[in-house]
């Protein structure tokens, strides 16, 4: 299966490493290779129809020299001329207009290529358009890495729980906010102090608004509402309150009632909302640290809770690999005539 990797930052490099690491497993299991035929970063690219060496790409990128030649035109234009099977889109999330990820994904789907992405913007803003386009062209759009990192939320719901109707869901979808809120509660430290600590530890960006204002959680919740509950909503429909105004006093007052404060995303009959909530100690959503968790209620199975590490190079690469393996399995079934 020939891959075009677009975006070669932390996630892209993690995926290249995972492709190298799982080479033997893929060949033993599916009798084929994951061959990287093109890789693009923001300025440069490398291309070889016989396959590029994944670890050499990573080393080149880390040397600061880019991936190869300077790109003469946009990635989307180059994708139209390229021969590949799967676009792996890993450019950074842009929640204003979803670009350049949206155009890249749309281009690949229009050219009848499968797409695997970790980019939340295109799906949080244009889920229905992209979903319909992929179905119309008979290709797959997979996006496990957009929500919950290594936690298998989307594929679990769409594949293993396919017969279930998910009636409601609540979750912690941002590890940075959970780290800040749990440190405030467990160590009695004020918000500003823990935020600085999170920035020093690399959990929060210099501009932390994307995390602490609930933007990241709301993007993920919009994707889940579409993918798991079949709603037609975008990021802009999510009611959103962040954690900026939470004081240590508020955390302590909640603790007296045996509750913790957590940033919770919720989809139910009342709408789609991200906001801080008081969670009873011992509840599946009262978890501490940088973990992510999703708690669903379905018509047959009842309550299901999934938890895991929500972000990071290896974790996101793991989610992308699960989508790539999903495509390999589908191809194997098609080849054997098991799927019409």
């Amino acid at each position, binding site marked *: 299966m020939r891959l075009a990797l677009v975006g070669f930052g932390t996630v892209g490099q993690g995926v290249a490493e995972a492709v190298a690491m799982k080479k033997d497993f893929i060949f033993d299991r599916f009798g084929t290779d994951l061959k990287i035929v093109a890789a693009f970063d923001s300025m440069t690219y490398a291309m070889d129809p016989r396959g590029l060496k994944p670890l050499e790409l990573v080393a080149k990128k880390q040397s600061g020299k880019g991936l190869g030649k300077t790109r003469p035109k946009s990635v989307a234009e180059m994708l139209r001329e390229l021969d590949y099977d799967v676009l792996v889109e890993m450019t950074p999330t842009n929640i204003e207009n979803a670009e350049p990820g949206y155009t890249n994904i749309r281009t690949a789907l229009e050219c009848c290529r499968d797409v695997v992405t970790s980019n939340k913007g295109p799906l949080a803003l244009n889920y229905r358009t992209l979903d319909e386009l992929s179905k119309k062209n008979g290709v797959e759009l997979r996006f496990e890495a957009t929500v919950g990192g290594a936690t298998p939320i989307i594929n679990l719901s769409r594949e293993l729980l396919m017969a279930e109707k998910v009636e409601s869901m*609540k979750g912690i979808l941002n590890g940075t906010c959970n780290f800040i809120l749990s440190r405030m509660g467990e160590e009695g430290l004020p918000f500003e102090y823990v935020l600085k600590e999170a920035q020093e530890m690399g959990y929060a960006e210099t501009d932390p608004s994307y995390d602490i204002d609930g933007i990241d959680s709301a993007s993920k919740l919009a994707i889940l509402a579409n993918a798991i509950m079949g709603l037609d909503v975008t990021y802009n429909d999510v009611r959103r*309150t962040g954690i900026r*105004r*939470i*004081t240590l*006093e*508020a955390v*302590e*007052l*909640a603790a*007296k*009632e045996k*509750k913790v*404060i957590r940033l*919770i995303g919720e989809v139910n009959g*009342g709408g789609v909302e991200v*906001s*801080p*909530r*008081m*969670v*009873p100690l011992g*509840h599946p*959503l009262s978890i501490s640290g940088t973990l992510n968790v999703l708690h669903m209620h379905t018509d047959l199975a009842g309550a299901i809770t999934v938890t895991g590490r929500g972000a990071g190079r290896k974790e996101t690469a793991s989610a992308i690999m699960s989508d790539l393996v999903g495509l390999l399995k589908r191809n194997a079934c098609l080849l054997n005539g098991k799927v019409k």
Partner: protein
Amino acid sequence: MRVNVDLRLKDVPGQLIKALEPISVNEGNIVGVVHNHDLVTGGRISVNVTFEYKDQRSLDAIFSAWKERGVEVVKMGEIVRTFAAEYLMVGNLAHSTLRGITEGIEKMEGVETIDLQYSLSTSTANKSVLLLVNLRNKEKVRDIDDYLRSRSKRNDFLLIRGMGV
């Protein structure tokens, strides 16, 4: 609604089933039964039953079935079940603002009790207040959510809801 009744049954085998059957037949849900074998008065034993009923019609049907079967009802009391909704408010919460909020909630249908707990801070500008509301009907929680949301916008405070009832 939930109800608690003291029944008197003949002290012969099969009477308890005779007393409980009309509850399930009329769409009631038995929550608890206390059978006092030791308390026999005039050849009858005392049984205390708590059950939920669907509506007045189904409760009437249960009572008339008991009458037909010779089951005596000696005492009945309605148990009002309440649901607790919790909110934490953080921000500029002057006494007048809090009074306005509690008065607004008191006027709402189905509200039984309201309780406020304050943080120790003397600063009004960033006060934390825990609000506990007991309701007779859990469907009304959404009305309180909506009311507090609009107050949080108007008075510029952060509203932290509980996980629902």
